[in-house]
């Protein structure tokens, strides 16, 4: 198992994909933070760091990148045929699944930490140039970062399981994005009491955005975890039976 995890980490770091994702994430976060801080009226910006609206950029986008990372984990291998040598080296398939969960969680954590670091590195100097006195509570910031990492890890797990179940990369990624960015929004308008239990809403609850309409972070995490378990179980079940032909 340890060998397979090492192999999965090596897979992550030996194509330019993860660096491209990192660059994309950094660009989105940078643009978002700059836009929010420069647009904000000085009055609205006077708040401790942990309550700044620009943190939401990372909290929203980084878990989504975690999901993409997870979705690509198996679908890349099916797409390029590398699943064959992978399974020849590790014929016990659930071991490959486990190793991918660990490695993509690690990759997701790295992406999220990078996003948060960029957020603070850009946001704080911008606040200072606007003449705002920057204060923060370290414990409150730690809670925010912890929630971000938790959400990201759960989303990578959902991605790994879903990608394994669906197998086809474009279908998996397009399906997930359409659901999260369009379908859930429509449902939350039509049936908000039901829609708050959907995965996207549960994810927002974990990181504490729009908290008024949503579940508590703990409940959101439990629910998102349940979705992850279902996705992994479905992917694992299909993988045990699937012929690699």
């Amino acid at each position, binding site marked *: 198992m340890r060998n397979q995890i090492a192999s999965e980490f*090596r897979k992550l770091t030996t194509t330019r994909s993860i660096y491209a994702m990192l660059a994309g994430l950094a660009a989105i976060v940078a643009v978002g933070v700059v836009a929010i801080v420069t647009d904000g009226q000085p009055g609205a910006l006077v708040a401790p760091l942990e309550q700044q609206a620009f943190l939401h950029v990372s909290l929203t986008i980084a878990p989504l990148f975690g999901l993409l990372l997870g979705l690509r984990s198996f679908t890349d291998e099916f797409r390029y*045929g*590398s699943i064959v*040598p992978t399974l020849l080296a590790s014929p016990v398939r659930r071991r490959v699944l486990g190793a991918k969960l660990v490695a993509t969680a690690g990759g997701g954590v790295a992406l999220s930490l990078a996003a948060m670091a960029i957020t603070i590195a850009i946001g704080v100097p911008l606040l200072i140039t606007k003449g705002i006195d920057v204060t923060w509570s370290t414990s409150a910031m730690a809670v925010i970062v912890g929630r971000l990492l938790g959400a990201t890890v759960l989303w990578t797990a959902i991605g790994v399981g879903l990608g394994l179940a669906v197998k086809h990369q474009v279908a998996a990624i397009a399906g997930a994005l359409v659901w999260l960015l369009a379908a859930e929004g429509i449902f939350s308008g039509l049936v908000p009491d039901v829609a708050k239990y959907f995965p996207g809403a549960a994810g927002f609850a974990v990181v504490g955005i729009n908290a008024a309409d949503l579940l508590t972070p703990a409940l959101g995490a439990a629910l998102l975890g349940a979705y992850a378990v279902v996705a992994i179980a479905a992917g694992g079940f299909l993988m045990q039976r699937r012929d690699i032909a």
Partner: protein
Amino acid sequence: MGANRTADRPSAERASLGSPAISVRGVTKRFGSVTAVRDLSLEVHPGVVTGFLGPNGAGKSTTLRIVLGLVAPTEGSATVLGMPYRSLREPTKTVGAVLEIQSFNPLRSGRNHLRVLASASGIPQRRVDEVLELVGLEAAGRRNAGTYSLGMRQRLGLGAALLGEPRILILDEPANGLDPQGIRWLRDFLRGFAAEGNAVLVSSHVLTEMAQLADEAIVISRGRLVRQAPLSELTSDSRELVVVTPEAGRLAAALHERGLGVVAKADDELHVTGGDAARVGMIAFETRVPVLGLAEKESSLEDAFLELTEEDAR
């Protein structure tokens, strides 16, 4: 077992490989309504290169994938050294396999592809550079594998198979994309590998290629075993002598009497099986029949193969 075991194995372990190296027993595989393999049994033994022959769609790849635990048989079982592939403790140090030309992420370098696989099997990373050199990819190793030519992709696949210094090699259509030099290299490599007491199972639908590579042949058609025999036997079975004589009737009777197979092709031409030129010449001499022509018509492997698979198709 530690990682240091790969480089220098004790010679005692090298000495004997269990036989059969690969065993397929009564395997049937159905994909929906399509039966790819029907009640197939075969064995692959160490010391020789075994060719796995059959037309496209005969079930060769499916059979190899069943042996490697990638496809589950509907019925029957396949084992490597007496164990299902999935139960092997160190599968890639036991069996090396190349199934598809494209089995790597094109954005990863060839060297990193091998490093990824080495990690998964606990093989030391220095082995990667040894293998790159062995398959002649040391110069291209750091380039993205997506830029490789067909032949280089085959070599990368072979490199991946050789990482764990396995005792058994399974290659599906390995000559695809190799130039004549590459095929010769592969033949010499496989011959040497088998001569060390290792086992090789190599599939192909191109028979001239197989004639160069293999010693033993397993022929399948439509998912069924047609023949397992030494390659030489496969061709000699259908070896015919062409005899030209003005007294075809008398000679035919004399040959028939002595148990040889005779077919009259023309008034003065007989096709004889079951005896060599010396025997037929001697019989003609004893019978006092003049022989105007006596030639061996060695049918090619291709003829033998077509004969075998057509019989099955009927």
